[in-house]
């Protein structure tokens, strides 16, 4: 039912136009692709492509020395519509791209592609590129994962956070041994410097609130194993699932809001257990000394150098190196949002997103996935509401609940229409409204099914009536049966 339209502009630099182009430039072309999700749902992706040649300004920009500079110069020349893509095709021999790299993805919504030998090569490159920069079949499947049977999805898809209107990010410093270490971290500065730019960029997707706390005497749930060779303590992969539970009891829930919480824990091991290293599946220590838990957050172990002299004064004062910590946490944050940069062909080159931590097209990817997920959520919420109504016939639907349901349906429909028209931003807004309305309708306190008296108990109350009434009826039924049997036995007697 879904149709996703991506407006793509393919711009040919002079000397890069392939010879076997079907029509003279400029022209329009539409490509449709079917993405099967399950038996009922299928998603059609539609790439509305405009082919044209460069303008004079773009030509100047493409004459920059490096791809980065060209990307920066081209940025003001594009329309900044969310979800749209601009691909610049440069000639095969262009020096803009480094040797062996055929595709360069910029910081914004544009990319540079080598023309290749013919139209076929160009087409396949364009197809790969558009999928990377907007959505792939797996990202669509992950977003619709409620309707997809388990097992079809990789571990990656399950890792992503569910789409929500807001997220709460909590950084916690765990100091289980305040007698030996006084740990200080300049979290306020680190958040302002590293996390806030990313969240400003992501503010289009959801509301974010950030806070931090220090927890003392909070210990991990497992005792690490001592390794004699390296004289250090090791946490193996299979024990990591047991680490989180006892800590989580101390983290405290977010009582003031209903948004999901992302926890990032920095664990300073107690003196008797340090240094502490996390092992991967092969037994080698993990270089970042951190791990993350899908849809929950991440934990990083921060080892404190033990003083060489035994007369060292305790507690030791420790100042946390926030750059190291934030690098790990930001990488985990990207992973939790499903923005990993894996599984790319080698001929692709990505521009690092810089201080913002997130390129424009990555934001688009997130918006595509979240919009689809929101619509799927609305449909499941309304379906289960309908199922509830089917089960309890005499439930009362108040006018405000009904209007919320109507609003949810109409918003979801408009979101789908806007997706089909290629207006990503307004589609996302509409899908958010649909989720809000449908949740409000579903969680309305008047729809609690315990409020309604179940029918089987009504029957139980009237058993004193039904039982004595049933006795003579059953007896006479038995009598009728007996008599008909006798009548069959002696049919001749009647004559």
């Amino acid at each position, binding site marked *: 039912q879904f149709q996703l339209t991506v407006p793509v502009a393919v711009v040919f630099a002079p000397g890069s136009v392939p010879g076997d182009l079907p029509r003279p430039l400029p022209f329009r072309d539409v490509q449709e692709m079917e993405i099967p999700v399950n038996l009922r749902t299928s998603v059609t992706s539609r790439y509305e492509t405009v082919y044209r040649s460069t303008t004079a300004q773009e030509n100047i920009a493409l004459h920059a020395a490096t791809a980065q500079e060209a990307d920066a110069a081209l940025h003001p020349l594009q329309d900044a519509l969310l979800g749209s893509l601009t691909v610049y095709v440069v000639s095969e021999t262009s020096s803009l791209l480094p040797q062996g790299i055929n595709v360069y993805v910029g910081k914004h919504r544009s990319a540079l592609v080598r023309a290749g030998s013919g139209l076929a090569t160009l087409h396949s490159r364009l197809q790969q590129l558009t999928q990377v920069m907007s959505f792939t079949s797996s990202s669509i499947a992950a977003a619709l994962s409620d309707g997809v049977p388990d097992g079809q999805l990789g571990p990656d898809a399950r890792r992503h956070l569910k789409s929500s209107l807001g997220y709460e990010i*909590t950084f916690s410093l765990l100091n289980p041994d305040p007698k030996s270490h006084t740990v200080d971290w300049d979290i306020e500065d680190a958040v302002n410097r590293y996390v806030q730019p990313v969240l400003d960029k992501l503010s289009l997707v959801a509301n974010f609130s950030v806070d931090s706390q220090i927890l003392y005497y909070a210990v991990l749930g497992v005792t690490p194993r001592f390794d004699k060779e390296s004289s250090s303590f090791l946490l193996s992969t299979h024990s990591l699932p047991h680490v989180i539970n006892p800590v989580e009891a101390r983290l405290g829930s977010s009582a003031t809001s209903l948004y999901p919480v992302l926890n990032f824990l920095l664990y300073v091991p107690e003196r008797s257990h340090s240094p502490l290293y996390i092992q991967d599946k092969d037994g080698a220590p993990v270089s970042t000394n951190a791990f993350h838990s899908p849809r929950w957050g991440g934990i990083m172990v921060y080892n404190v150098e033990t003083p060489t002299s035994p007369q060292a004064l305790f507690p030791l004062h420790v100042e946390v190196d926030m750059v190291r910590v934030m690098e790990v946490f930001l990488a985990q944050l990207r992973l939790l949002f499903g923005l990993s940069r894996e599984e790319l062909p080698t001929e692709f080159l990505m521009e690092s997103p810089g201080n913002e931590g997130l390129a424009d097209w990555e934001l688009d990817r997130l918006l595509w996935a979240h919009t689809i997920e929101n619509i799927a959520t609305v449909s499941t919420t309304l379906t289960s509401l309908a199922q509830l109504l089917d089960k309890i016939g005499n439930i009362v639907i108040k006018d405000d609940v009904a209007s919320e349901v109507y609003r949810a349906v109409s918003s979801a429909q408009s979101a789908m229409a806007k997706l089909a028209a290629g207006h990503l931003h307004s589609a996302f807004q509409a899908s958010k409204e649909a989720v809000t309305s449908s949740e409000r309708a579903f969680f309305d306190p008047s729809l609690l099914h315990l409020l309604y008296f179940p029918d089987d108990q009504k029957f139980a109350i*009237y058993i*004193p009536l039904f039982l004595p*009434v049933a006795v*003579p009826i059953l007896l006479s039924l038995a009598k009728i049966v007996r008599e008909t049997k006798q009548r069959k036995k002696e049919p001749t007697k009647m004559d």
Partner: protein
Amino acid sequence: GGMAAVALVLLLLLAAAGPVWARPDVLREELLLSPLPAGDVAATFQFRTRWDADLQRGAVSHYRLFPKALGRLVAALGIRELHLALTQGFWRTRTWGQPPLQAPAGAELWVWFQPTVTDVDKAWKELSNILSGIFCASLNFIDSTNTVTPTASFKPLGLGNGTDHHLLRYAVLPREVVCTENLTPWKKLLPCGSKAGLAVLLKAERLFHSSYHSQAVHIRPICRDASCLAVSWELRQTLTVVFDSFASGQGKKDWSLFRMFSRTLTDACPLASQSKVYVDISPKNKEKELLEVTPPPASLYEAVVQGEKRTYAVYDLLSPLLFNTSRSLNVQLKWTRPQDSSELPTPVLHAHRYVSGYGLQTGEISTLIYNTHPYRAFPVILLETVPWYLRLYVHTLTIITKGKENKPSYIHYQPAQDRRRPHLLEMLIQLPANSVTKITIQFERALLKWTEYPPDPNHGFYVGSSVLSALVPSIIAMKEVDMEQSPLFTSLFPSSDGSSYFVRLYTEPLLVNLPTPDFSMPYNVICLTCTVVAVCYGSFYNLLTRTFHVEEPSRGGLAKRLANIIRKLRGVPPL
């Protein structure tokens, strides 16, 4: 050269003290042990976190010692002051004396909101729901039927003189039972948890094996320094417990930390900047020292607390000398000779309340307020909240002191609305010296709808404690003390001047029986009617469906045969 050396020493000292004093948040912990006249021991824990940050601005989101859950609550709901107490048992003021902190039985919550809060009732509802989640208590049962807005009894304890009492909400749930599930989240709010420091003693199985247990959370804004240009936030977690050591100690009044808590103190919380144990060893009855505390205290502290001169033995857990001789601190107290318990000093102000009358239609609530001060009269504010199902007759309100009618100088009465709000009665009553004041008011018991009865309605309905607030004149002159330096137990209520001290007392909660229907009656009626209907149905059914035909006289029934046997015996022809 000399100057340089002095400067260097100063610098070193500053460097050593620097990290401690530079912190914007400070934790102090304190335990007060006071032997009560009747042989019980009261232990009052106080943990105070003071944070030099303005929670209201919303910009603060990085927590260290202050618990994040409460900090976010204060910021999100616009709370200026929050006082929550969960109590099991009743503090017997008459025999135990004036408590450092009293709370009514059950749950008590009173909150001042910021003037910026537009919908106070909504914030109050949201707050009680969140708090019930944090503390695992049934505070979500706080609604408009048990919430009142007192006008005079509850003033803000922190900064700012609250005059707009519309920002205040007060509710008591007298039926609330306090147990370990409330203690655990309370302990979790402490920076050291129950892993180190004084909180090690908080072992649930001992704390609830006591005559009185009260745990509280107080949040308020205070002045950052003497000039009071900036605001700091203070979180006080207090826990008071009374052990009946006379009964558990085989008739002896001696006690020790280990006997009370089955733990001893081994260290201070490493995060606390002060960690002290105070033992009240003030001589009673102006006699010689009757008490002997071991180990010998390092210092003594003398103060005038609640109108009495008191002496405390002080143990500083942060001083390295304390743990030199032994690894743990087990404070013990012995009475050197048996104390004559006949002469108990009665507190200056105490009160007693009961419900009287017979039958299930009307009744009377009586409150007795005692002023035992020999020569000073003082006013007291009485706050009475009565649920709507007890309909008060205000014209029957009588206040009698020494046989004469006592006219209150201020009355605020808000009548109840059925199923909407409770009665609120606030009065300012002058108590003459050495007098008993009796306040009576009659009420009628309302009939509830059958769904409004709680489970086990024959247990009765609770009426929350009434609250007495007074500035009691002191017999001994008090000195002005610096709040920041004095022990915590003296500094929650500000004393207005040197001649009087503030006391808040709670009376007993009342248990009132309401006319209760027989809840099994509807089912009985259904059963009976159904049986009657079924019997009628059965006979009609038989009448309608049976075919009647004349029975041929066969050998006859049993009676006929018996008769024939008798006839045969008699020689008469058979029937």
